[in-house]
């Protein structure tokens, strides 16, 4: 097992190097000059020259790359060109916000998606199935930004139930934090709920056809016990897999949701950084995300081997 982990870590190194090269060069290929943006409206030539020198933009790209990666290896991802704040600090500040949003959205998606899937499988072909499918399909098709703005207008402006946008740290005021996050989490969660519902439905359908369900019914068990204890429990395996995969999708969806609801999270950070040509921030974020992804994959592979002895020899 240790040898396996060691091998995987070795393979991870060139992958991380590749990611870092990609991020760095792709950014340089973006049209637009960060220094012109930073110099302000007046574009004082003296300031421009100084800033180019300070951020090493006069050096060849290769020299710039090694300077950046060298510092990154020592835990220094540079400072934001826009606000002078260290990039690592920015990431540490924004990540919990997005994780809270994604977690809440996932809970909402599961609460809506799984019961809806079970019900529509159980009532297959009836109007309940039909309604659940239409709702799921619209959940998938309605764009986040439209739903978001409509919800703000209805829930905040008309009804005054929830704050229209913004963010409250969970540690400061848990109740207010959940209230501000509820609407964005719902908008983000509905799209995921639809996918989850479809998967639950098909998993349930195949389970409901199996012999042991017929046996359970033949034993005279109540429908509730058959459905929850015998059918759903067996259908859960693929559902759990899909849910885990959807977490990545949630993080991506958070980018748009954070823009609409003005939530100061990871997604908003990266979008604003791209528009402001805040190179250091974009590079830092993509590098961190890449490394995290590789690490998660490694964990998953290790988990498979722990759970399934047949995979250990491979």
């Amino acid at each position, binding site marked *: 097992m240790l040898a396996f982990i060691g091998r995987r870590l070795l393979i991870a190194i060139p992958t991380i190097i590749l990611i870092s090269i990609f991020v760095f060069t792709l950014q340089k290929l973006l049209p637009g000059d960060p220094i012109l943006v930073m110099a302000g409206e*007046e574009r004082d030539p003296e300031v421009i020259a*100084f800033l180019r020198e300070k951020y090493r933009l006069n050096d060849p790209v290769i020299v710039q790359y090694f300077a950046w990666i060298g510092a990154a290896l020592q835990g220094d991802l540079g400072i934001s060109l826009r606000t*002078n704040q260290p990039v690592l600090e920015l990431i540490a500040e924004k990540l919990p916000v997005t994780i809270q949003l994604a977690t809440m959205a996932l809970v909402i998606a599961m609460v809506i998606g799984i019961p809806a899937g079970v019900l529509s499988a159980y009532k297959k072909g009836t109007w309940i199935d039909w309604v659940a499918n239409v709702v799921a399909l619209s959940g998938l098709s309605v764009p986040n930004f439209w739903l978001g703005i409509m919800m703000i207008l209805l829930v*905040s*402006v008309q009804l005054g139930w929830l704050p229209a946008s913004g963010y409250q740290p969970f540690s400061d005021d848990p109740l207010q934090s959940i209230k501000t996050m509820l609407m964005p989490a719902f908008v983000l969660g509905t799209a995921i709920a639809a996918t989850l519902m479809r998967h639950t439905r098909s998993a349930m359908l195949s389970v409901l056809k199996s012999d042991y369900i017929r046996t359970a019914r033949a034993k005279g068990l109540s429908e509730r016990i058959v459905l929850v204890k015998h059918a759903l429990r067996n259908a859960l395996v693929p559902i759990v897999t899909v849910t885990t995969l959807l977490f990545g999708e949630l993080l991506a969806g958070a980018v748009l949701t954070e*823009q609409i609801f*003005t939530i100061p999270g990871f997604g908003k950070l990266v979008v604003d950084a791209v528009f402001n040509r805040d190179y250091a921030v974009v590079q830092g974020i993509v590098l961190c995300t890449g490394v995290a992804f590789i690490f998660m994959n490694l964990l998953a592979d290790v988990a498979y081997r722990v759970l399934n002895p047949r995979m250990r020899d491979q």
Partner: protein
Amino acid sequence: MAHTKKVALALAFGLAAAGVTGAALAQDMRIGLQEDPDVLDPDQSRTFVGRIVYASLCDKLVDITPDLEIVPQLATGWEWSDDGLSLTMTLREGVVFHDGTPFNAEAVAANIDRSQNLPESRRKSELSSITGVEVVDEYTIRFSLDAPDATLLAQLADRAGMMISPTAAEAAGTDFGLNPVCSGPFSFVERIQQDRIVLQAFPDYWNADAINIDSVTFLPIPDTTVRLANLRAGDLDMLERLAATDVASVMADEDLTIEQAVSLGYQGITINVANGAGADNPLGQDARIRQALSLSIDRNVINQVVFEGAFAPGNQPFPPTSPWYNDAYPVPERDVEAARALLAEAGFADGITITVQVANNPVQTQLMQVVQAMASEAGITIELEAKEFATLLADQSAGDYQASQVGWSGRVDPDGNIHQFMTTGGGINDSGYSNEEVDRLLNEARTSTDLEVRRASYNAARDILIEDLPIIYLYHVTWIWALDDSVQGFVPYPDGMIRLEGVSIAE
């Protein structure tokens, strides 16, 4: 069970605490901003939105009135020498910075030195005329100039004249913006990137009697619809830059009020007349084609169609409301026949095709589509190149464009709206325009402190520029603030700032 009780107790406490904070926040003013400000260091910052925060955080040597007159702030009086080569200022006594450092002539000297010599400073060009600073006594400072500079006082009414604590600046260096210390009515509490900037009233402020608010929270909310929704939901007390298309609905809402002021800046089409190879085309080489383009545009229709009549049509670098506007050239009527005649005279009787780059946001795109439709009726086919703003700016600066739809946020002194754009080699002269007579007139206007001399110079320059048209001016943005009707005493200024002196929130 004991655990549940503990949780319940903690929750109850949490709620009580939240309730108490709620009561204390009654005098918190929540202001919605269109963007997140950049670094909060007056010497390093560059955004308009940052200046809105400074208006509460950092006092300046002088301020302006809504009519653009210069009035005392940290300097109580000033005097020019007869030759215009020295400016002596008397400073306000008893002023302290937020960290307790006293404000005096030494502090002013240190501030000017930092603005001029900090490598990262964006203020160098604004203070370039100052060659010497002399501390006359504790509350008197004298600036020596290499040449008379009529724009200096206006510069000192903005970021270049903002006074920061020399102690804090010395200690923090370029990181000053992470924890700014000034002497304004409010002091810095905290900033969460892209979320909020919180300031609290400074008890030792020299003009504390004019401040009725305990704290201010600035919330950047870029989406105009969401920003307005926050105001309507009561989560904001006021917002800046209401979309022109929302004015009617806000006016119809009896819980909200609107305040407006025509801005100091302009929007127009900059044409590449001599900035590299991009100028090598009929539009860049023949002023008649530029005149034809200008004549084909109905500026009032633009204002009605794109901005619901909320902005101000224009044809000069200064808005028609400005004392510097030249009445000899009123905003022209659209004249398609005259435009066609000019095109024919230039040898393009069958029409001409030009390319204009435009920032890829909905408003500017719609603006240029209206212009495109109007110009086509005069035989000018406009091909629009939508670009993301950073790219548009880079191409424009490099001369890699024919024409570009851009604008300028405007300055208090007229020089700021014209000199750098129209003089040979000017820092932001992206059209590459060069005319000796215009150079002479604009330099003259810059060095004279006599208003009539300045006005005559600007008018004479306008006689030439209105023919050459390196920039076709289209309109002037109107700053529009929407306020909850509990907010009282807000005075709109043409510089777009939010000054909280005298502002209060009714219970």
